């Protein structure tokens, strides 16, 4: 049942420090922003992983409602939790970068606003999960909320155009505006973040599975 070491966790143990080393020792120093710019590599990786989480949560929600298998609820729960964690980190790393570069912790920019609204929606999912006791009801409600939250994304994105943008666009349709060495660093850190995501996701799922198994045992004992 239980493996001692999750392969992704072991991989993440090397990938994340490896990415940090690449960021600090390999990537060149940006001319105007200096060392502050290095947070960008983590920021973008975290943002990609956060959006992946919300997508996975939505798919897991749909599959739970169709199949009614506990495993999909476990995956949905794990995805929402990690998504909220990663979005929090995206907002924090962005703020840390924005303070010296934009001279403000926060600005109502489309991307910042979109991330913040998504953070609120999926944090609400976590609150909903803690508010329901019965297992099946909780699973259905959280599945519905995850789907409802994800279908909001296009409208959030459209409405975000209302706010003026000062956010740098590194990845455009014409290509990526980065130095080759920076591009390599970005790829390394993006991969590391996705590995970390997979490791956390698998660990969280297995924890959820064990919690459920424990509840089952308790119920059997009470009978």
């Amino acid at each position, binding site marked *: 049942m239980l493996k001692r070491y999750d392969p992704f966790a072991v991989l993440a143990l090397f990938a994340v420090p490896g990415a940090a080393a690449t960021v600090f020792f390999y990537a060149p120093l940006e001319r105007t922003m200096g060392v502050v710019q290095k947070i960008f590599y983590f920021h973008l990786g975290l943002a990609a992983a956060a959006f992946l989480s919300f997508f996975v949560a939505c798919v897991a929600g749909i599959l739970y*409602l169709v199949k009614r298998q506990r495993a999909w609820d476990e995956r949905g729960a794990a995805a929402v939790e990690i998504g909220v964690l990663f979005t929090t980190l995206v907002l924090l790393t962005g703020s840390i970068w924005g303070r010296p570069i934009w001279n403000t912790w926060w600005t109502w920019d489309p991307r910042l606003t979109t991330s913040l609204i998504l953070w*609120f*929606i999926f944090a609400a999912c976590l609150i*909903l999960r803690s*508010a329901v006791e019965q297992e099946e009801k909780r699973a259905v409600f959280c599945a*519905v909320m995850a789907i409802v939250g994800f*279908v909001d994304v296009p409208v959030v994105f*459209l*409405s975000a155009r*209302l706010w003026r943008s000062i956010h740098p666009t590194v990845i455009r349709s014409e290509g990526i505006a980065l130095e080759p060495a920076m591009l390599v660093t970005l790829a390394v850190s993006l991969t590391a973040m996705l590995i970390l995501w997979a490791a956390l996701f698998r660990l969280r799922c297995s924890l959820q599975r064990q919690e459920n198994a424990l509840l089952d045992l308790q119920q059997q004992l009470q009978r």
Partner: protein
Amino acid sequence: MSLVQQTLLLYRKDLRVEVRKKESLIAMAFFGALIMVILNLAAGLGGRIEAEPAAGILWVAILFSSVLGLGRVFAREKENGCVAALLVSPLSPGAIFAAKALVNFTLMSFSELVLVPVFFALFGTGLQPSPLILLVLLMLVNIGFSAAGTLLSALAAGTRRNEVLLPILLYPLCLPLVALAVKATGAAFAGRPVSAILDQLEPMAAFGLIYAAVGYLLFAHAVREV
């Protein structure tokens, strides 16, 4: 019975309850008017308010008061185990969703009949909206808010913290809708033509359509667990 007949039957039942007790509408109109007075403090006492902040005040008052009505629609059904009765009746869950959404839409529209005149009495100096544009904006927000709100109030009613949970779940989802509405209403208050706010009207209509469809599809799952 066809879906439309089922929906109308339930809709009439809910409206009859509301007309006899009047618990939601009075509370909504009263609370909305109260919020406008409170927001007058936030906007600076006695000063004249610009078009866009004024639009913000109108929408905050409408949305905060509407959540009172939304919460009651399902709480009332739960009180005497009426949800179970609705589910064993030969009505389809889609009809229940449509009827409840229509009830919420009607409640919002009627409370706005009070709130919008109160708003113009308090803040209306210097605002020149075309009534038609304002009506379209009100209808679009009512559709979107009642579609999303009906689905989520079913979720909230299934938990033990109904009143607390509903706004927590609903407001983040409706943030983009409200932002679009404030922008468009601000432009309308400043006297700009429809072509200037078309960019905001389209996503607002999309919001209503998305949540009407999603609500119709997911409501059956949610209501069985209430």
